[in-house]
């Protein structure tokens, strides 16, 4: 299927009080995509959303929607709607009046508005609450009203600014599925901002991982998880073991003094690299069962339900390991990794990309 470009950010930069928040950001979002801007607080994701919504003007660069430059277009002239973090409902109006707000401004007739309110409330499962005051609703219900209020205007793009942040875990999970369903039913583009990597992996067609005003990686949830482009992405998405290593030559890497075969090529010879190994990709066997590899001692075991989470001290590095097979504390084990599961990344070229050390232990 041909993907049609919908909105494009070109060389967008933004600084607040001399502090750079976005630095030469380029981003293309296609029609009917669920795109998530993901990153730690202060990474520029919300500023990006606000620039798309028109609430901030970039210092330089352009925003192009459907081939039209909308950089200086006021928010009320843009065919986009936003679901705000704190809902931002109109407390002096009831549910139906909140939803009708945009349609009344647009001068739609009464019957049309009635139909739309009914349709939107059905869509977000709030039928029968038309005339309730919004302050009497629960957080989840208020969020649904905020979504209904935005989508009745049939926006080209729905912007969502951490809309589930204030909800409890169970409700958040339910709402994630609801949002996916809504996106499929409405067939409009969703741009979603969150710092929650699980939320991003669950809902998105494409994830834009951001840090310190830069895009670190754009890709499908699978790409981002399985093929992180740098140590920051690897560390931010899921748990990982990030280790300093040396690429000896193509398809052979030295990790903690031990040589491991891998599948990567083109890094040169004797090059320092970052190695990422997901905890579930570390294979433990009792020491002595096989030759070679790294040996170490289990220092900690926690039962997590689906798997055991173990810490293994080996080669001077504390490995995080997820395995269904349990090795007790103090057991000598051997660490093995399938060549395919060793992810090799160039060391960050500039300080701007060097984010892992500063944001160590995000999870």
């Amino acid at each position: 299927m041909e993907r049609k470009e919908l909105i494009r950010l070109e060389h967008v930069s933004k600084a607040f009080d001399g502090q750079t928040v976005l630095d030469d950001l380029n981003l293309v979002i296609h029609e009917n995509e669920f795109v998530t801007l993901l990153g730690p607080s202060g990474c520029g994701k919300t500023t990006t959303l606000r620039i798309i919504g028109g609430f901030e003007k970039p210092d330089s660069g352009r925003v192009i929607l459907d081939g039209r430059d909308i950089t200086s277009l006021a928010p009320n002239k843009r065919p986009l709607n936003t679901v705000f973090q704190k809902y931002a409902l109109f407390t002096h109006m009831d549910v139906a009046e909140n939803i009708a707000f945009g349609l009344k401004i647009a001068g739609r007739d009464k019957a049309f508005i009635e139909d739309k309110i009914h349709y939107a409330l059905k869509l977000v499962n709030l039928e029968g609450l038309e005339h309730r005051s919004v302050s009497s609703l629960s957080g989840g219900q208020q969020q649904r009203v905020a979504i209904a209020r935005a989508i009745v205007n049939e926006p080209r793009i729905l912007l969502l600014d951490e809309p589930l942040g204030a909800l409890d875990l169970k409700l958040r999970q339910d709402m994630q599925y609801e949002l996916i369903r809504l996106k499929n039913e409405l067939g409009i583009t969703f741009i979603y901002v969150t710092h929650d990597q699980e939320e991003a992996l669950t809902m998105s067609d494409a994830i834009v991982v951001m840090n310190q005003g830069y895009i670190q990686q754009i890709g499908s949830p699978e790409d981002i998880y399985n093929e992180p482009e740098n140590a920051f992405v690897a560390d931010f998405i899921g748990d990982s073991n990030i280790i300093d290593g040396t690429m000896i030559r193509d398809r052979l890497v030295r990790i903690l003094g031990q040589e491991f075969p891998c599948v990567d090529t083109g890094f040169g010879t004797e090059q320092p690299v970052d190695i990422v190994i997901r905890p579930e990709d570390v294979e433990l066997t009792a020491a002595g069962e096989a030759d070679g590899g790294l040996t170490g001692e289990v220092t900690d075991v926690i039962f997590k339900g689906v798997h055991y989470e173990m810490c293994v001290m080996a080669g001077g590095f504390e490995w995080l390991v997820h395995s269904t097979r349990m090795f007790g504390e103090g057991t000598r084990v051997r660490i093995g990794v399938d060549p395919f599961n060793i992810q090799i990344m160039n060391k960050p070229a500039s300080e701007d990309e060097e984010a892992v050390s500063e944001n160590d232990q995000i999870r």
Partner: protein
Amino acid sequence: MIRSDKVRALFAAPYLSWAVIFIVVPLLMVFWYGFTDGAGRLSLANIAIITRPEYLKSLGLSMALSLVSTLLCLLIAYPLCLILTEKKTGRAAVIVLLFILPMWMNTLLRTMAWQTILEKTGILNTILRFLHLPSIYIINKPQAIVIGMVYNFLPYMVLPLYNALAKIDDSVIHAAHDLGADRRQTFLRVVLPLSVPGIVSGVTMVFIPALTTFVISQMLGGNKILLIGNIIEQEFTQAYDWNLGSGLSIILMIFIILNMVIEAALDRAPEK
């Protein structure tokens, strides 16, 4: 529990006796004097006297001037508060302080200042004459009283209004823009309705002192304009007719209570 109740009662005693001595007893006295004649017989004459033209005229003028002053205060304060809430907080606090600052001075003193400004040969006319412009004679006229009221009571309008407007979250205004509303529509449909509680308390806080004042009307109205406050004051301090003064006070009280009831109803209406 009994013990703590007793302790509580002990702590409440000073406030209770204060309220009884300075609020309940004077009120009862006002009612006693208001509903009796000079000889101590029950009578409605002090109340009924309001129907006499000179008193009705005073009451009407009081109402009219208070209403105009309240409206002017609202018209001055609202744009000011809108500007204040859009500014950065540090700066807004300074400007609010500038408006509150005059409140630290005595009302009498501030009103006297206006006397000096508005006099026939006062500051205003001196400046006008210097600029070869025609003089303005508003001292001892209702206009002067309105100026005095607006000047004295403006802070009471600014404060609650500023608080109400400052409470409106930016994201709500952004949401209105986001849904297609321009600045005018956002103001009329979102900001104005959300500021109604502030308007109501501001109006109450200006209208009531304006309705009852006798100082401002005395100093800026000469002795030519008698507001209901002046008449009541004269009955007590010059005519020594406490019965009549109390009767008129009761009438004024009824109007104030009516005003508060209407405003309370207005305040509740938009919330549903």
